């Protein structure tokens, strides 16, 4: 491939996508970056004194270094990501291996696992609130049937954090399972046949063929699930609204509240978004480099 001298073709292939990104994401995103250098509200009118914006340089960035709300939300987001990402990878890969089998009705089973991805996070949050509620929740109801004490799932800080993690994993597994199934399909059967003839057992086949050949898909799942975990917002807002207290208040919620429920804080919220963006970008680049895939 590398011998091509004037590669015009690839630019044509990527042009439509790049054009849309430039027009619709990059333009407003630049505006977002600019906002972070101002003290300003949601609406700016220089002719109305209360709605003026003021250039403050890097002041907003200095402010967030010592803002406990921001730092706590940041730390919680990291912790959340560190737990959910590996869990999602293990669970969705296991399910993909299980549900790629050609057994009767497997399509229905896949649909059932994928089902949570078909529904808006609002409904998912509601359904789980019914399950995890202390007094009206069905999980506690089942526990009492087995004479186990009711658990304060969404009331106690640690349990609420765990609940949010479990629900996030549950909600995304189907999506990543589908991606893994797609990846598994690209591995030719002949490799497994050859291995079987050589006497390799199931585990040897998995570690010797499946895992290495699945690497592009694994990277895909790793990067996407990390970004998803970092951006967690809607599901948590519906499930716990960041509570109890601020036990499950993550970064995006913090930024959103900063922008919309405090006066003249849009610039500060934008500064948080910029930091947020670069942390995610660095993380993704690191994941690409670590997978050694970019150098191909």
């Amino acid at each position, binding site marked *: *491939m*590398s011998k*091509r001298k004037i*590669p015009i*073709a690839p*630019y044509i*292939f*990527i042009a*439509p*996508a790049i054009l*849309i*990104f430039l*027009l*619709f994401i*990059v333009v*407003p*995103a630049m*505006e*977002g970056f600019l*906002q972070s250098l101002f003290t300003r509200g949601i609406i700016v009118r220089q002719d109305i004194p209360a709605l003026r914006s003021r250039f403050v340089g890097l002041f907003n960035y200095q402010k967030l270094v010592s803002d406990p709300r921001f730092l706590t939300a940041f730390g919680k987001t990291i912790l959340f990501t560190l737990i959910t990402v590996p869990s999602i990878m293990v669970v969705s890969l296991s*399910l993909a291996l299980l549900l790629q089998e*050609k057994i009767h009705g497997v399509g229905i*089973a896949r649909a059932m*696992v994928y*089902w*949570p*991805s*078909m*529904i808006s996070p609002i*409904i*998912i949050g509601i*359904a*789980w609130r*019914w399950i995890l509620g202390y007094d009206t*929740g*069905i999980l506690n109801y089942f526990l*009492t049937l087995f004479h186990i004490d009711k658990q304060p799932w969404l009331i106690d800080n640690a349990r609420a954090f765990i609940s949010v993690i479990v629900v996030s994993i549950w909600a995304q597994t189907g999506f990543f399972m*589908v*991606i893994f*199934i*797609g*990846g598994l*399909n*690209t591995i*030719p059967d002949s490799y497994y046949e050859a291995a079987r003839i050589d006497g390799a057992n199931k585990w040897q086949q998995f570690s010797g063929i499946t895992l290495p*050949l699945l690497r*592009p898909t694994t*990277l*895909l799942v790793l*990067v996407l699930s990390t*970004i998803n975990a970092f951006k967690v*917002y809607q599901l948590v807002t519906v499930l716990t609204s960041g509570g109890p207290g601020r036990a499950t208040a993550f970064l995006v919620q913090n*930024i*959103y509240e900063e922008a919309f429920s405090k006066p003249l804080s849009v610039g500060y*919220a*934008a500064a948080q*978004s910029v930091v947020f963006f670069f942390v995610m*970008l660095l993380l*993704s680049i690191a994941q*690409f480099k670590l997978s050694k895939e970019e150098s191909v």
Partner: protein
Amino acid sequence: MKSRKVLIGFLKYVIVIVVAVIFFFPMLWVVISAFKGESELFLNPPRILPVHFTLDNFKSGLKFGNFTQYFVNSAYVTITSTIITVIISTMAGYGFAKFKFPGRDVLFIGVMATLMFSLEIIMIPMFLTLKGYGLINTFIGIIIPPAATPTGIFLLRQHMRSIPDELLEAAKIDGANEYQIFTKLIVPLSVPAISTLTIFSFVWRWNDYLWPFLVINDDKKRTVPLALANFVGQYAVRWGDLLAMTTLSIIPTLIIFLIFQKYFIKGISMTGLKG
């Protein structure tokens, strides 16, 4: 030996069913609750099956607003947007996977970086941008901008990396041009990834709330999720209507999933190699 195989097969079935039920139960509850009256929804202790089975929620939900119109709007937007998504993601995925060209890695990271914006946060600049292009209150405004999805491009790129370069070289030696290689070789070999993306894109667009919210403020052009949001009021949620309409709105995505998941057939991508 044979009985052992049967046993393993049986066990697999049991595991599959258990897993499916665990994942499905919460959503099953949503669907069942759509057939309950309001006062039955929050009983303590809770009850799974409705005491009085009722279709009232569906009737009152459909009566409200013009749901037929919203379903038509959603279908139009979702289908066109998904077609565009599949085309441009397949093209871009190919460009990134099978060519080496100056700026490739930077551009690809740039594409991925667009995933890292939370639309919630840049909503007002985004709105002003769309307004600048004259796209407010147009279907094009909900169809085109979200059609380019980094996830789709990434998915197709990763899939295409597993297509052996020798196949492309062979086609080139046979005198195929870039266009022919793409349509006759790459696209057929990418059917599993394309069907995966079709499912994803359909679900995203069908359930999307934020883009339509940004673009549409004319009630007649609303999509289903926008209409569903109106069941959440200032003081209370109209559970019955919300659950019933949510249940209805899942049906199209379910059908799409069941149709397209058939193409996840093992080995399909390698037919080219063997043949």
